[in-house]
């Protein structure tokens, strides 16, 4: 094999340097990589002897205090679910417009419910259809699936560029808070976030092709409320830019 990247070397390191790992065999014959690993060990020693003792207390303290913070919200599913229902009712009343109503994004049987939450500095809020979000905003998702299966979250911007926000992952029926978050980049303009559910495996390339077909037919992300796929799905339009725009 070629010399492994840092990423591959880190994977080997995290796995405890197993002898059956391809990197292990490579290291035996590559002096350059052995030297890299020696440098790593020196850095690791510096962490253990200097960085860890100097920072551990603050790290533990900060993380212990943060349990009720933004993502602490997701650790209280009942509270989150109750809040979601209240919000849904309020939003349904406030935003209901018969002619051009945005997709309902609380799940009902046979559809996928999609909830988007945003953290901006210390503020956390649920994202409403058409809401303006900023570069560096951190977003998380919760879905309400019609049953066990896989879910994937993608987005498409006005240039037609498709990004994978949440790779295909298993969900049970009902509401699931998806792990991890996505930091928005600094592109501007409308962007539509799609949640897609399937009882079988989901393929990103298939979804992306559907987005491309849908964009062609609808003329833009603002009109593309549903992908041309026979899958439970939902979408939410956001606008990326600055507050003053």
């Amino acid at each position, binding site marked *: 094999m070629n*010399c492994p*990247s*840092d*990423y*591959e070397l*880190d*994977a080997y*390191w*995290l*796995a405890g340097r197993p002898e059956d790992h391809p990197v292990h065999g490579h290291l035996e014959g590559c002096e350059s990589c052995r030297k890299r690993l020696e440098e*790593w060990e020196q*850095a*690791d020693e*510096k*962490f*253990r002897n*200097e*960085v*860890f003792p*100097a*920072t*551990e207390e*603050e*790290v*533990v303290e*900060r*993380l*212990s205090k*943060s349990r009720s*913070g*933004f*993502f602490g919200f*997701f*650790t209280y599913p009942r509270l989150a679910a109750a809040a979601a229902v209240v919000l849904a009712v309020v939003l349904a009343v406030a935003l209901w417009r018969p002619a051009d109503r945005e997709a309902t994004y609380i799940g009902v049987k046979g559809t996928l419910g999609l909830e988007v939450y945003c953290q901006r500095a210390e503020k956390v809020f649920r994202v409403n259809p058409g809401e303006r979000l900023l*570069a*560096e905003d*951190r977003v998380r998702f919760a879905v309400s699936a019609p049953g066990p299966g896989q879910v994937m979250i993608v987005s498409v911007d006005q240039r037609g*560029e*498709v*990004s*994978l*926000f*949440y*790779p295909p992952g298993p969900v049970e029926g009902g509401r699931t808070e998806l*792990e*991890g*978050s*996505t*930091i928005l*980049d*600094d*592109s501007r303009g409308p962007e539509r976030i799609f949640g897609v559910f399937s009882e079988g495996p989901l393929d*990103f*390339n298939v979804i*992306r092709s559907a987005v491309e077909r849908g964009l062609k037919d609808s003329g833009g992300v603002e009109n593309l409320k549903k992908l041309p796929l026979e899958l439970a799905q939902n979408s939410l339009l956001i606008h990326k830019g600055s507050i003053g725009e």
Partner: protein
Amino acid sequence: MDRDEISQLYRRLGPLIYRRCLRLLRDPDNARDATQEVFVRALKHKETLKADRECLPWLYRVATNYCLNFIRDRKPKDDRAPEALLQEGSSESRLAARQQVFSILGEFDLKTQQIAVYSLLDGMTQEEISAVMGLSRKTVGKKLNRFSERSKELLS
């Protein structure tokens, strides 16, 4: 997760994060501060973080994002990255790539900056970048091509 578990996880993952930050920031003091910040952010936003291969893309994303923002926001008088990089004992081509990347990174959006760092500094394959970034390989390839073309324009 209680305090002991947080401490154990920090002891286990901290070296990896520290190395990553040191590699990008090239300054032990900044890397130390960055390490604790990255670990706190990584754990705060992913409560089930475990020290296995599954956590690697997430840690790379958080660390790289933090360090790139740090480099971008750093005052010019403290901007030691390119000079420090030149003093390294690595191969000339790698140094040239590093210098080139850092000198023009600010011209690109954060996503492209991350991809350029993974590719040109870390030598990661497009598949690895795809896994870390949560993007398709095609998108990674496209962004790298755009980065390459725009870089040539900027440097010409």
